[in-house]
């Protein structure tokens, strides 16, 4: 037996049937991952982020950076996704590394401020946030970070900062993220107000409806929450989180029903 007998090679064309050849040609027509540029991966990351899929958005940001490490948006996106995933020490570490590459970048400084704020280090967060706002250019991120700092400090200036951010960037993602910040700090009423603004701007976005439902649920508004989750499922029928939330709602109602039945000895 030759020592090369066990090596695997592509089957010769004559051994493939007609269907196999068609499949092979179709495979060749499909673009490979290597065919896409960094802009494509950035767009993919943005789309995933708008769907609330932060884990895969983070992966796409990393893929974009693999192709071009000078993409500031990629580094900023990574930091923001780490924050969204609740990995604050890692986000702070990563923002520091990115700031070594892009010195005094306002968005990275804002990301670092947010990470520090979530970790509880308000003093360092304040310094980083001040540095972010002091940079040239108008960005929404530093004002969002400033607003979050105000919320964490229970300061009344949070609305002003968040309004400023929304004024700078009219994207619906901004009020949605502001709502998420409020929700993180347990300010569900304000979170709902901001999330409704996002819904008004982009009613065709399932993630907005889902976030609105979550806010309403946190406030005990079960009926509106159910409607919001239902809207979300209308737009994206296989939205797993909305399905789960609706199931929990129904389950809770059944628990209540069972409780009342037992209480009043209903049949």
């Amino acid at each position: 037996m030759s020592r090369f007998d066990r090596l695997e090679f592509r089957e010769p064309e004559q051994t493939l049937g007609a269907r196999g050849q068609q499949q092979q040609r179709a495979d060749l027509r499909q673009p490979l991952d290597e065919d896409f540029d960094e802009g494509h991966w950035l767009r993919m990351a943005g789309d995933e982020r708008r769907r609330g899929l932060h884990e895969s958005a983070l992966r796409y940001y990393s893929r974009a950076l693999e192709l071009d490490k000078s993409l500031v948006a990629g580094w900023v996106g990574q930091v923001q996704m780490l924050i969204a995933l609740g990995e604050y020490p890692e986000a702070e570490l990563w923002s520091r590394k990115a700031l070594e590459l892009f010195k005094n970048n306002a968005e990275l400084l804002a990301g670092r401020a947010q990470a520090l704020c979530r970790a509880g280090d308000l003093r360092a967060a304040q310094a980083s946030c001040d540095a972010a706002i002091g940079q040239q250019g108008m960005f929404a991120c530093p004002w969002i970070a400033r607003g979050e700092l105000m919320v964490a400090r229970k300061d009344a200036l949070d609305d002003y900062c968040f309004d400023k951010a929304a004024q700078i960037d009219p994207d619906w993602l901004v009020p949605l993220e502001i709502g998420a910040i409020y929700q993180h700090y347990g300010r569900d009423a304000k979170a709902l107000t901001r999330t409704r603004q996002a819904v008004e701007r982009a009613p065709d976005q399932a993630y907005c409806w889902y976030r609105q439902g979550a806010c309403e649920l946190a406030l005990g508004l079960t009926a509106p929450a159910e409607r919001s989750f239902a809207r979300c499922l209308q737009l994206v029928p296989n939205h797993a989180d909305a399905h789960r939330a609706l199931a929990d709602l129904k389950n809770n109602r059944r628990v209540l029903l069972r409780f009342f039945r037992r209480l009043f000895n209903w049949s």
Partner: protein
Amino acid sequence: MRAVGLWRAAMRCRNCQFQNMPGTDLCGRCGTSLRIATAVIDVQPPRAGRLSKRIRRVMPRRPSGYYDARDAMLQARDEFTGRVVSAVPRLPPAPVVWRLVIPGWSYFYLGQRGRGHLALWGWLAFLLPGLFFFGTTLGSILLGLAFSVHSSAALDIVSRTMQPAEGVVRQMIRGMGVSIVLFVAVYWPAGWLVTRVADAHGVMAAASPFDEGDVVLVNHWRKPLPGRVVLYNIPDFRQRPAVAHGVTYYNFEGERIDRVLAGPGDRVRWAGGELFVNGKPSPLKPLAARWVPGPMEFAVPADQYLILPSTTPQVRNVQDPVLWHVLGLVPREDIVGQVYLRSHPLGRFGAIR
């Protein structure tokens, strides 16, 4: 075209959008590297492990007490520092200032014995050898180092007891000010005093019993009594000796070292290598007596001294009474001081009598 576009893109900073000059590695505005795109950097962010996530789920953030306590401590420190800074005087206290005369003394006064010992012994380690080699290049270097140690210790004391100087320029000005004050107040008077009683004087030309490079110490305050070896300025004189060919002149000027043989009003006779002062034999002799010819007689005028220039090579064995009279009778004001010690080289170290 695509290459040109890429090249332009590479020159544009991705951080601040500044258009840089071709060939630069760093952005001229924000300092970001223009070669990040091709740099070897890990772009995969760190992720929290499963255990960390579980712990964070149970304890979502670091207990707020940690940062609160830290901020409270920092605030207390800032307040304390502010109080201390506002309470610090603009000048050091007087007992500290006058103790700066000796390095380390102020440290001992302030209770900092370690620093005091370091400053004092460091200063002495340079000062004592510097004084020993006084008048030589090595001695100058060692004395300079001693001054540096002293001024550094003084600056440290001043900085500790005064309000901190903000900025490099102010610190430099303070450092120079301390050094200048120290020099004017301590080293200048001390140097003047030392050079009055122990002025190091280097011998420039070999003239027995001195060699070139010898260093002798001169006391300016000692009177030129007969018998003492003195440093004096030889009277200016131009002599034309008789030589076989051409015209030659000897100019006599500059400083010489020799013994005072007689004072004002004395009558002196030098004959056969013996000195007679006012008719009586005297034990005094010039430093190089064997080169002085005789016989010669002198009447020393008032306010002048007889110093035979035996250490001047040009007059050795010259039988010219006029020359010896002119050069030997030295006015009082031309006598610089008594030479009493040869300090260098160490092989010939000793008193001069």
